[in-house]
């Protein structure tokens, strides 16, 4: 029983994290069929900015965290403008490598400026744990799924109910027609990268108190989140979020019941198996090809 609850708590907390970062992939992919492979570095940037603004500049959390998220959004726009747009404009797929390189560049810049020592970002929500059914839970671990689900619902509403959301969807369906209808497609694409990086930054701020802040903290998250985004099908926010929870739970249950040496072998083998059966992911639809 304890093992089961332990796996459940760990799986939901981490799964929500993966889902939140993966939503960033989903947003830009939906709008322009491209993604920012430096997403893991955006997670790190959120946490590092959060640390620097609170612990070094002494700003209150209520001011520092929104500023950190704005910093991430700005970086997202920079990535799109410098590493994606120039290549996309010439029909090249080199943005793929360019964003990967951008991530490495950012990680190393942080290594030299922020330092190579892992630091700790305090939060009142990890000071004491609640004991539930034989296992401990930090309030922070419940905050992550709450925020993640909230964001997924908000995104769903944004796309379906608001003018800007519909404009985004129009860009998705037919960029040329959207441009003709007076929608600023270039702004929409920039916006989607900003939002995407902000979500990653939020994930970084949420996980940092449970983890430590350092320059390569986001790399593994970025890779797992991309796997989650593919698993979820890349097109629906709720699908990606569900895939995140699923991935986190499988990971936690394998570690708990079979031991950690099996975790990566089994989770990634399962991922390949699922994609072999459902090439568009669990909740994705096959892309329509109109001739």
């Amino acid at each position, binding site marked *: 029983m304890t093992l089961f609850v332990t796996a459940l708590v760990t799986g939901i*907390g981490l799964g929500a994290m993966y889902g939140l970062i993966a939503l960033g992939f989903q947003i830009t992919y939906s709008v322009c069929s491209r993604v920012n492979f430096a997403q893991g570095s955006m997670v790190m940037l959120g946490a590092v900015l959060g640390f620097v603004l609170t612990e070094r500049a002494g700003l209150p959390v209520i001011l520092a965290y929104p500023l950190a998220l704005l910093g991430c959004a700005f970086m997202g726009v920079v990535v799109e403008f410098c590493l994606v747009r120039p290549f996309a404009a010439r029909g090249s797929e080199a943005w793929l490598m360019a964003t990967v390189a951008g991530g490495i560049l950012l990680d190393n810049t942080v290594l030299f400026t922020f330092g190579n020592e*892992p630091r700790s970002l305090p939060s009142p929500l990890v000071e004491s744990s609640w004991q539930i059914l034989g296992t*401990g839970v930090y309030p922070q671990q419940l905050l992550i799924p709450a925020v993640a689900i909230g964001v997924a619902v908000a995104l769903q509403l944004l796309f379906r109910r608001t003018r800007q959301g519909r404009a985004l969807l129009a860009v998705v369906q037919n960029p040329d027609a959207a441009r003709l209808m007076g929608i600023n497609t270039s702004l929409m694409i920039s916006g989607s990268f900003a939002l995407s990086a902000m979500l990653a930054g939020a994930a970084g701020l949420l996980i940092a108190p449970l983890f*430590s802040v350092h320059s390569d903290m986001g*790399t593994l998250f970025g890779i797992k989140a991309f796997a989650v985004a593919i698993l979820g099908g890349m097109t629906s926010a709720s699908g990606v979020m569900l895939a995140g929870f699923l991935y986190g739970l499988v990971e936690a249950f394998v570690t708990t019941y079979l031991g*950690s040496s099996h975790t990566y072998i089994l989770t990634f083998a399962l991922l390949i198996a699922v994609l072999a059966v459902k090439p568009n992911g669990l909740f994705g639809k096959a892309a329509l090809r109109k001739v």
Partner: protein
Amino acid sequence: MPICLPLTRRLLLAGAAALTLGYALPAAAQDDPIKIGLVAALSGQSAKSGEAITRGITLALDKINSEGGVLGRPLELVSRDDESNPGKGLIAARELVQREGVAAMIGGLDTPVSLAIVPFANDAKVPFIGPWAAGTPITKNGAEENYVFRVSAVDEFVDEAITEYLVTKYGSKKPGMILINNPWGESNEKGLMIALEKRGMEHAGIEKFESNDVDVVPQLTRLKENGADGLFLVANVAPSAQVVKSLDRMGWDVPVASHWGPSGGRFTELAGPSGEKVHFIQTFLFTDPAHPLFMKLQERFPEIESLADVTPATGIANAYDATLLLAAAIEKAGSTEGPAIRQAMYEISGVEGVIKTYDMPFTPEDQDALGPQDYIFANFVEGEIVPLAD
């Protein structure tokens, strides 16, 4: 009658040889420095540890050179950064030996880097002394003529020491292992298994985790459910902190005996106050700011303000003693030739280091100067490493 030598080819050759010798001679003049190479991570995640090694060597060289050097010549340090990369470490070692002509090398912060340099050092017959990396096969490398020595902790001895600690201090009967998933973790898994087998003890499980794992609760819960009454921890600072945080969350209060990983950084900041419960080994600690070597350190490196600025002191002390031992061996050998220095390493005696006085520290069977009796158990108290009372 003027002596007129016929200009033969032999004479020309002799002349050429004399010329070359003439040019070569000043280069080997008596007060030309003897070069000592350093290969260590001077940038990246382990830069702080590399800095500690550099400081230790620098202080030792200051001492030796102020006393007139070795064989009447000063010692000079030539440093190369290996960036914790085995390939770069090997290239750096080659460059130091072949281009700089170093008499011996000190170095190896990471076990994989050291292991990459070991075969080269043995082939080139250049003594290579480790002040840090603890992997057992570095000194036990199976070479017929072993040029690799170490003044540091050794995994198999550490594993023996932490097992003894859990058993005698906490009466542990069934400890569990929580190890980082890399060659270092693996090396210690073997050592711990041997230490447990020796005592006829069983273990509650061997759990691995990744250096970027956030949550280690599943692994620890497995150990707890299997009845672990003590934990062996092998990991660097940040992953060790994740283990402590996970223990905290579970509310599991269990004795933890650890390798020296936690000593390399801000462990209690990362792990929280429970980090103080982790007991780990060290080879040396500064406990008194009036320690002569600490005062020398402050004098030489004004940025050092308190004892907290020299964690881990282990790196400084190991490198300091390694340099003194090497200098003693060169003096004894009366030469800077590798084979002569190696032979002299087995004969040196009465070398006063900061960790202890070394009398015949090396034998061809055991090229490690420090053993379990030299280890100290310590923990963090308010950010400083302090020795634990017995």
